[in-house]
Structure formats: C-alpha cells, structure tokens
C-alpha cells in the first residue's frame, strides 16, 4: 500500500506566499559579493588598462605619423632623384645646356609620372627649354625667372621646394627646382619640375589603421594637399582652423615637437585622437587622425568584457544558489506537504525523499511516525465497527473498569497500610539511633534496618567498673543520678562520633560504628570516641572521688564482621549486633581496668599508626577457645 501512496502526493516546488526569504537573501548576498568583487577588480583593471591603452594609441599614432612623413619625403626625393639623373647627361657635362636638354626633359616626363612639366633655365634664369605633358609652351625670348626664390636658391646649389598651388583652383601642384651642375661646383642653370601632387594621394590613402584611422597632409596656409577622400582636396577644403594645424606650424618652441599626440576635434567636430609630424623640408604637416572610439576601442572591449564577466558571474551565482535552494526547499516542501496531508487525515501518506542527506533521515522518521499513527488508527478502526457492538464493548469495558478500580482501591489501601506500618517501624529506630542517623536512614532509600545483614563494623563496649559495689552502697536516687549523668556524658560523646547505640544495660553500653549508616573511618571514629570518653571520665573522676564514688570506665573495642538487624518482639525491639566481634568487644571490656581501652591484635593491626599501645599479653576469654592477644590504647598518636 505504501508504495502506491508514495506516488500519490506530488512534490512540485512552487513558491507560494508566506515566509520564503531563503532564495532572495541568499541570492542577494551572493550577487552583491560576487558582483562587487568582479566589478571592483574589473574597474581597477580597466583603470590601469586605460592609461596603457592611451599610451599605446599615442605611440602607434606617432609611429604611423613618422612613417608617413618618411614615405612622403621619400616620394618627393624620388622625383628629385629623377631630376638629378636627368641633369647628368653627357652633353650637359661636356658643354652645358644644349638641345640635348630637350631630350633629357622628355626623359624626365617619361621617368617620373608625377612630373607634368619641366623646364631648364640657364645661369641667368632664361628658360632654355620647356616641355609639358599637356601643352606646348612657346618660349618668349628673354623670359627670365631669375627673380624667383626658386631660381635664387637653386642657382646657389640647393634644392628649392615651392609652395603648393592649385590648378583650376582645384588640383594641387608644386614645383621642385634643382641646380644643373656640369660638374661638381659648376652650376650652369636650374631645372624646375612641376609635380602633380595627386600622385601622392595613393600613398596617403594607403595609410589606414585601426578602424577609421587615416592620414592627410596640410600646408602652412591650411590647404589640404592629400587626403583619402580626394574630393576634400579638390574642393579646396581649408583646415587652418584645426588645432593640430595651428600647433604644428606654430613657431613657439614649446609647442614645436617632432611629433605630438592629442585628443582634439576634427573638421566635423567629432572627437579624435590625432598626431602630427612636420616635414620641415617641404613645410608640410602630416596629420594622423583616428576616431576616439577606435583609438580606445580596447577600453570599450574591456568594459564589455567586464560587464560580460559580471553578468556571467551573476548568472552562475544565481544558478548555483537556485540549485542549492532546490536541494533544501524541495525536500522541505515535500515534508511540509506530507505533514499537511497527514494532519488533514491522510495517514497513508508516505514520504519519498531520496536525497541521501539529513532530509532522507527526517522523512524516514516521519514515515515511521505516520505508520505508527496509522496502525493505531487502523486498530482503532477495527474496534469501531458497529454501534451495538460498540455499546456492548463499552458496557463490558465499564464493568471491567469498575472492578479494576475496586481492586486498585483495595491494593492501594493495603499498600498504604503496609507503608504506614513500615513508617512506624522505621520511626522507632529513632529510639536507639542518634537522631541524625535515624533521620539519615529515613531519608535514604536503601537502608532497611529491619532486615538482618552482615557487615564489617567496629564494636565498642563501655563498662562502668565498680558499679555493682557502688549501687550496693549508695542510695538508689544517688545511683540513678550518677547513672543519668554518666549516660548523658557518654550519650553526648556517642552522638558526637555518630555511633550507633545498641543498648544501655545498666552499667554496660554497646556502641557500634558503620551501621546502619556506612562510615568509612568507623574504626578511627570508634577509637577517637573511646579516647574521648576516657578523657571525660578522667575529668569527672575527681568529683566522683570526692564523693567517694569508686567508679571507673573500661572500654573494649573490636573491629570485624558481625550480623546486624532489629531483633526482639513487638514493644521490645532493639537494633542488635551478633557475632564474635561484639562478643570479643564485650569480653575485652570486662578485662579492661579503669581508664583502659582494650583492643585485640587484629584491630590493632588496622590502626597501629594512630595509637600508642601497651601490650597486655594473651587473655583467655570466655567463649573464645584460643587466648586473644590484647593491647591497651594509651593515647592517640595524632588527632583524629
């Protein structure tokens, strides 16, 4: 049955209302801890990364700027090289400017595609020959260029780089003027070439890096010479407003740097990371630009990475917490629902929790409990079959119950009575026991003084010597007074040492120790008491002697096993000790002279370290076949 019922209750794990904070608190704690940790480390890492990236980006740009400047300079130098080559012709070296120069100039056009036209002028600046790709130049005689800067520089032996000008106000050109040397030192004229700068555009356009990183060239006047977007050049876009242009061409020594990187705005106002390099020879500024976002894209990536990691960490935490909570909440829910089922009457519900942990144990116990409840319930059901039978059973039960009750009453009465008798009996022992002893016995559970038992005890017999003569020779009242006084003194001392008084027999008193209450040091107590009694007697004796009472006390003391118990008959009960040991003690006391405490050898061997003794030799005692070696206690070695 239970296996069927096992599948009955569903164990869905729905969160209802109520006190269900586990998931939330656990999740929040984990989330904040993990999230905070990851965020902090991510931010710190990113902060340091930021400065690294900025440096990297700047370095990269400066590298590119330098390399671009180098390439452009090289481009111009190549043209210069071709020009120089053209001036080194056999004819020129031999005889200076000659018709051969025509061929040489055409050769230049052939060699150097950027050169659109070129001319050679003599040492006076008169143009000798002028060639062009696109036109014919009719040379006006005496047309001289000697006033131009170009001529004046070149004729001195230096290359002159002209300013950039725009043909059709659109296309950028420049002139390069070099000296024509017949041989070294002999300058016979100048060669000027007009360079179509659109041939630089491919070079400049090819400088691309990062995403959107590009280069362009600007003159001192803000004219754009080259740009990946050639329309800007042909449109005559002027860039003199740009920060980089102003800085790059400034004559302020502080702002002049070979290369410099800064964050600035470009022509469209967008934020860019920009570097520039000046080509001093040409007075051109090479500017490198990269959109901020591209330059620092690593940062964005790092940030995205950090956020990704954070999200991942959060997700993992969530998953972990949810899984953990499921392990806890699910069984709890199962138990809760099961308990609910059981409490609402479905006793056949059994839990099916196989988590292998404490929950399984608990649910097993739940099952046991439910089974037990169910059994009893089933039994109950059995008994609750039909109303009449129920009535019958009730009647029978009632009868039985009543009878039981009567019996119970009877037995209770008996019990009470016996208990009362018991109590009376017990109370009587107070007569012969020290009050505290009898109290202790009454209080304790396992001491029944009415039961005879064998025990090791120390028995002390106190004999009043000369009592018989005394009682003969004195008035009874006097005897009684003395006895009373004697008994009071002795009694007080017995009480002091918690001895058990067996009987007063006129002149003899028997006291024993270690019964009915156990006394571990019963022998020591007995000895101490005896010594104390003799001392007391010794103190009283002078009085007695004054009154001419010839009384003395002799004590006999023995330790060993005896049979003890309450003996006698109703009205005359006594707590007695029977056996060799009490007998011996009695005999020894008989032998004892006044002031003596006589013990046997066996007893002595037990306490020899406590007492000073005087051997009395062997005594033949009535009731003992062998002579007993006896000793007298003179004093205690130390106080008990």
């Amino acid at each position, binding site marked *: 049955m239970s296996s069927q019922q096992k599948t009955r209750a569903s164990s869905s794990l729905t969160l209802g209302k109520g006190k269900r904070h586990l998931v939330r608190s656990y999740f929040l704690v984990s989330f904040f801890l993990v999230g905070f940790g990851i965020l902090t480390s991510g931010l710190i890492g990113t902060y340091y990364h930021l400065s690294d990236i900025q440096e990297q980006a700047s370095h990269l740009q400066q590298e590119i700027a330098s390399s671009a400047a180098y390439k452009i300079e090289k481009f111009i130098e190549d043209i210069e090289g071709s020009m120089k080559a053209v001036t080194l012709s056999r004819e020129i070296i031999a005889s200076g400017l000659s018709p051969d120069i025509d*061929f040489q100039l055409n050769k230049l056009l052939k060699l150097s595609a950027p050169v659109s036209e070129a001319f050679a002028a003599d040492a006076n600046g008169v143009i000798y020959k002028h060639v062009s790709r*696109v*036109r014919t130049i009719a040379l006006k005689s005496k047309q001289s260029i000697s006033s131009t800067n170009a001529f004046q520089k070149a004729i001195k032996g230096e290359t002159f780089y002209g300013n950039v000008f725009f043909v059709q106000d*659109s296309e950028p050109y420049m002139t390069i003027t070099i000296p024509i040397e017949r041989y070294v030192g002999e300058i016979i004229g100048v060669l000027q070439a007009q360079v179509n700068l659109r041939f630089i555009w491919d070079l400049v356009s090819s400088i691309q890096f990062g995403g959107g990183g590009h280069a362009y060239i600007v003159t001192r006047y803000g004219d754009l010479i080259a740009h990946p977007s*050639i*329309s800007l050049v042909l449109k005559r876009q002027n860039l003199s407003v740009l920060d980089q242009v102003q800085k790059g061409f400034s004559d302020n020594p502080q702002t002049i740097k070979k290369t410099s990187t800064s964050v600035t705005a470009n022509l469209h106002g967008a934020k860019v990371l920009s570097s520039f390099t000046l080509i001093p020879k040409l007075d051109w500024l090479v500017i490198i630009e990269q959109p901020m976002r591209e330059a620092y894209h690593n940062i964005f990536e790092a940030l995205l990475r950090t956020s*990704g990691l954070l999200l991942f960490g959060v997700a993992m935490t969530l998953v972990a917490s*949810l899984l953990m909570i*499921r392990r806890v909440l699910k069984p709890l829910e199962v138990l809760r629902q099961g308990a609910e089922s059981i409490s609402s009457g479905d006793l056949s519900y059994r839990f099916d929790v196989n988590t292998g942990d404490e929950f399984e144990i608990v649910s097993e116990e739940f099952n046991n409990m439910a089974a037990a409840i169910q059994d009893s319930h089933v039994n109950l059901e059995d008994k609750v079959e039909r109303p009449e039978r129920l009535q019958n059973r009730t009647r029978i039960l009632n009868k039985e119950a009543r009878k039981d009750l009567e019996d119970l009453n009877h037995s209770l009465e008996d019990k009470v009575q016996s208990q009362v008798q018991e109590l009376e009996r017990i109370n009587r022992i107070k007569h012969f026991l020290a009050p505290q002893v009898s109290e202790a016995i009454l209080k304790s559970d396992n001491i029944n003084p009415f039961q005879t038992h064998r025990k090791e005890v120390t028995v002390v017999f106190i004999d009043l010597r000369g009592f018989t003569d005394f009682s003969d020779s004195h008035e009874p009242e006097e005897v009684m007074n003395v006895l009373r006084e004697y008994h009071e003194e002795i009694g007080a001392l017995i009480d002091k040492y918690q001895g058990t008084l067996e009987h007063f027999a006129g002149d003899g008193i028997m006291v024993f120790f270690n019964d009915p209450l156990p006394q571990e040091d019963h022998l020591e107590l007995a000895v101490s008491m005896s010594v104390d009694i003799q001392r007391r007697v010794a103190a009283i004796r002078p009085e007695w002697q004054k009154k001419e009472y010839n009384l003395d006390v002799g004590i006999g003391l023995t330790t060993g096993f005896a049979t003890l118990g309450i003996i006698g008959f109703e009205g005359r009960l006594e707590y007695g000790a029977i056996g060799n040991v009490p007998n011996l003690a009695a005999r020894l006391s008989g032998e004892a002279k006044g002031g003596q405490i006589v013990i046997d050898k066996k007893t002595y061997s037990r306490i020899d370290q406590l007492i000073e003794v005087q051997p009395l030799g062997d005594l033949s005692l009535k009731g003992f076949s062998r002579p007993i070696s006896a000793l007298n206690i003179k004093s205690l070695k130390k106080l008990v």
Partner: protein
Amino acid sequence: MKDIFKSISRISILTICLLAISFLKIGVPAEEVRLVGIIGKGSEKALAARVESLKQGMMQYGYIEGENVNFEYRFADGNYELLPGLADELKNLDVDVIVAAGCPAAEAAKAVANSVPVVVYTTNPVLTGLIKSFAHPGGNITGMTLMTGSEFHSKRLELLKLITPSASLIGVLWNPKIKSHQLSLKEITNTATNMGLSILPLEAETQDDIDRAFRTISSEKPDALINFGDTIFTASRKQIADYAIANQLPTNFNHAGFIKAGILMSYGPDPVILFNRLGSYVGKILQGAKPEDLPVERPSEFDLVLNLETAEKVNITVPPEILLQATKIIK
C-alpha cells in the same frame, strides 16, 4: 522558483543578444536595388568597353550588377534629336543617377538634372555651362572632363609638328552639332596661329559626312589630320585610317582605340580609365554624396600610342623623343 528561473533566463538571453549585437556591430543597411541610367549619342557597341569599365569602378563601392544595381541604357545611335526624350525616359524610370557619355548626352541630361544626379564625361564642362567650376561644380552635375581645350590642342599640334616638321595646314575632323567641338575649334585655331599653323575644319555630323570630309581633304591637301573626340569617328576609324594611309597623311587622333585600325599616333587619356573613375562618382552618389560636393577631375596620365607600321607606310620616321614618350607601340 521556476518563474524566477524563467524570467532570469529571459533577461540573460536578452542581455547576451544585446552584447552580441554590439560586438558584431550589426549595421547592414537594407539592400535595395538601385538603378543607373546610361545615355549616349552613339551606339551601344561603341560604348561597350567603357560601360564595362564604369561597372568595374562601381564595384569598388560595393555595387554589383544584378545584386544591388541595375542599368538602363538609352543610345541615340547618332540621332541627336532623340536625346532629350531619352533623358526624360530615364528620369521617368526613377533612375538613381544618369551617366551621360559625351557632350550631346550631357546636355540632354542637364535638362533633367534637377530631378536626377548626373555624372558626365565631356570636354569643357565649365564653358559649355554644365558646371560652375572644377572644385565646386554646383548644381546636380559632376563627372570627369577631358582636357580643357586650348592647352591640350597645342600639345597635340606640337606632337604633329615633331612628326611632320614641315606641316603647316592641319585638318581637323569635328562635329558641328557638338557644342564642345565648336569651342574646341575656336581654341585650336587660335593655338595653331600662335604656333604658325593653319587649321582646315572638316565637318562631319554623321558617318556619311566622313566621305565628304575625305573629298575636302583631297582637294585642300592638309599636311596632317587630327580629330575631336566623337563616336562617329571611332566608328569609322578603319575607314579613316585606310584613307589616311592611302594618302600618306600623318594622323594624331584622341585615343588609343584608333591605333590598331591604322591611325599613326594617338595622344590622350585612356577613356577606359576615365570611365572607371566615373564609376567611383556613381558609387559615391549612390551612397548618398551630392554631386555639388564632388569636384570634377581631369585626367593626369596621357597615353602616347604609335603605329610604326603606319609610320612606315606613310613614310614617317618617328623622332626619338616621340619614341621615348610612347606608352605603347604597335608594329
């Protein structure tokens, strides 16, 4: 529990998707198919190679025929009066840009330029009123231009003089119907005078007119022959070349296409390269650039092509300077 799981999974997936998008930088615009109209005075065949080059130029901007761009061709086959109507047709087809090859086509396209961006290939665009200036064309027209008239003419005449030092009368094949030719003729006449040469204008509006030109040549006997660019001359190049060779007439035509047919020399920019650059203009305009922001460019490289076989046939020794400058030589 499951609800929380679900909602958190949803949020996580959403976030991951957003991250992925930002990583991948998805930003591809919707691919619509653009339409480019091409209008020319001559025949389709004459323009075929150049149109192919135009399409190549457009591919650099990501426009591939059949994928995201289609072409509409309107050729007048020599019937100039059809051109305005053809331009209108293209406009009504809602083309995204019109490419006008040659001066007549450019003029016709100008009429519809306020509705459609126009890219032209012509000479003297400023003087023929197509653009305001090279740097800032203004309006809705831009494109490539052959050399502005006068300067280039002088170079061509110079080359002729180098080949035929004794030349004094130069025959010029031109098309009176083409506005830029009218300007060029004026320019070359001035230039020639400065160079000590005289010009013999040889009108030809259609291919048939070329025969008439030949007759003028045989009667006036010029020392050399050059042309202004027109498709009718390209179409009749064999005819012209044969005639020139037969009559021992040195010739200098405007592009290399003539040389194989037998023309002695050509000097000028390579039209195929120019059309490739036109493709860049079209590409830029399709991507949203305005024609007024696209400056008009001039060619920077010029091919000098020689036919040495023809040289022999017409008894011309090509001077070394010419040989040196030659970009290509056909034997």
